[in-house]
């Protein structure tokens, strides 16, 4: 655990210092007339301070107070592929949403997400995604007037 807390603490110190640097660039002002960077500078100092305390408490503690969780248990190998696949699908959907539109984009997204990896049923997941797109389109676009991107279809 010690190594992880140290990395975490160092990250907070660096982030805090970076915020202080950025805050200084946009004017700190004075106590009598605080500028737009005043609170941000304080937040940066606070973050760095917390990071330093984290670092010191780890350095001076006789024993680890938290049990060390191995990397493999934190991010189980079995779910890693599914996780990366899901995140990638979501990013691809976001990138192409404006270009291909809500109906087509969401259909492919849902198809990919509904797909059961243990027993792939292509048609069933395709039908499920069709129904989902249809229902959400009617509810949100037609009834609630959300403005979804049209993309390649006139819908």
């Amino acid at each position, binding site marked *: 655990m010690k190594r992880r807390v140290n990395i975490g603490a160092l990250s907070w110190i660096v982030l805090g210092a970076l915020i202080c640097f950025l805050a200084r660039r946009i004017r700190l002002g004075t*106590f*009598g007339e605080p500028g737009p960077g005043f609170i*941000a500078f304080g937040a940066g100092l606070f*973050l760095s301070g917390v990071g330093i305390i*984290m670092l010191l408490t780890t350095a001076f503690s006789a024993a680890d107070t938290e049990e060390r969780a191995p990397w493999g248990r934190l991010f189980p190998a079995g779910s890693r592929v599914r996780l990366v696949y899901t995140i990638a699908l979501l990013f691809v959907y976001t990138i192409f949403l404006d270009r291909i539109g809500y109906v087509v984009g969401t259909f492919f997204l849902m198809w990919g997400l509904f797909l059961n990896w243990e027993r792939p049923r292509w048609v069933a997941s395709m039908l499920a995604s069709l129904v989902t797109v249809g229902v959400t389109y009617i509810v949100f676009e037609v009834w609630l*007037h*959300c403005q979804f991107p049209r993309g390649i279809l006139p819908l």
Partner: protein
Amino acid sequence: MSLFHDLFYGFGIAVQPWNLLACFLGVFIGTLVGVLPGIGPVGAMSLLLPITFGISPVTGIIMLAGIYYGSMYGGSTTSILVNIPGEAASVVTCLDGHQMALKGRAGPALGIAAFGSFIAGTLGLIGLMFLANILARVAVIFGPAEYFALMCLGLSLVTYLTQGSVLKGLSMAGLGLFLSLIGQDVITGKARFAFGLMGLVDGVGLVPLVMGLFGISEVLLNLEQLYEKREVMKTRLRELFPNKEDWKRSAMPIGRGTLIGFFLGILPGGGAVISSFVSYATEKKVSKHPDEFGRGAIEGVAGPESANNAASSSGFIPLFSLGIPANVIMALLLGALMIHGLRPGPLLITENPEVFWGTVASMYMGNVMLLILNLPLIGLWVQILKVPYRILFPLILLFCFIGAYSISANVFDLYVMLVFGILGYTLRKFSYEPAPLVLAFILGPMLEQNLRQALILSEGSMAVFLTKPLAAAPLLVSLVLLLSTILPSLRKKRQKVITE
């Protein structure tokens, strides 16, 4: 007399068809998200927040509030029948509720959870009516220094009471504060920390941030148990009513749970989760048969379920009277009020009585609706529980996307949501709680404005925070709390309390 007159005025607003529908939808969705593990009240509220933009503020707040207290009711169902808490405040109900179910007493467990929730929720509302009014009158004398100090206390308490390391909670609060400062400065109008991105000039959106941290990250965490099957206990309607002995054993726990929940709910950082744990610990301590706890003691269900509902009512007190949210859900409601152009604080009750009294009255009706929804319709919730998570999670993700996109029809918000989703997932893996971040994010602009105003008014003298007792006291308490995290002996004591 005036109080009853105001309450009748509130009922006049709450019974309007749209408000009644909003109340029903809110408690229905609340029960649904409470029942379903994988999406909590925060996620559901942030999902529906954009929908409320098109309706009147009071209708929107009635619906969002309904989701919150509705989820408290629904959360017990999964805890008792599946041993999976639907939301955090029902974690402790698993201990005895599921044991009762295993012994064939799922019905009385569900019944006492619903009745206890109803009694506590209703009593909590009476307290809310009285106390919010009184506090609002007192709070009129508060200036920027007092508000700044109270917000600091709120943030300190939230991080102090957060599970796990306080230092991690503090770092999350610091990060949330910085994120809240991105965008235009309210005083000079200057864009800050936008890094040349047009989407950041108006700041980071509340809804994409909350949906990412709570909705997307929750789904990513649950992907690890995607193909796990849930065993749902069978129950019949006629078995739902607790018998005389059950009532005898539950009466005092319901009373104590109501009191504990009500007072802990008011405290910043308190709320439904902590009050349910405190109530359980209290019941175990005062019980003549503490050995029965964890093996199906009905007191272990009645107390915590009453406490979390009382807390969900009293949590509205600091929000409506001071404009300071006691927990992350109230912070989201605060955000909703502000989006609707309302200014939560001591003047809200007098300037917008329809919002306060309409919401309070709707909560009375919502509690009755929930009793009906949670007892005769238990079969429906059990059926929903059987829907596999591999079907639910794509729908949750899609609703998150629709919710985030529909605010301003801008793809940039989707990127923000995804980034915070991944950040939330990673941080939660390393035991960082997102609640202090969200609370600091929402309080940030108000905290900045009040601090800067206080400093300008005092011509830069920091003594303004020490010479005013109402500012000095909360700051002193905050300082003590923060220092206690550094001192090893106090840190161990706190850890013991949290563990208990």
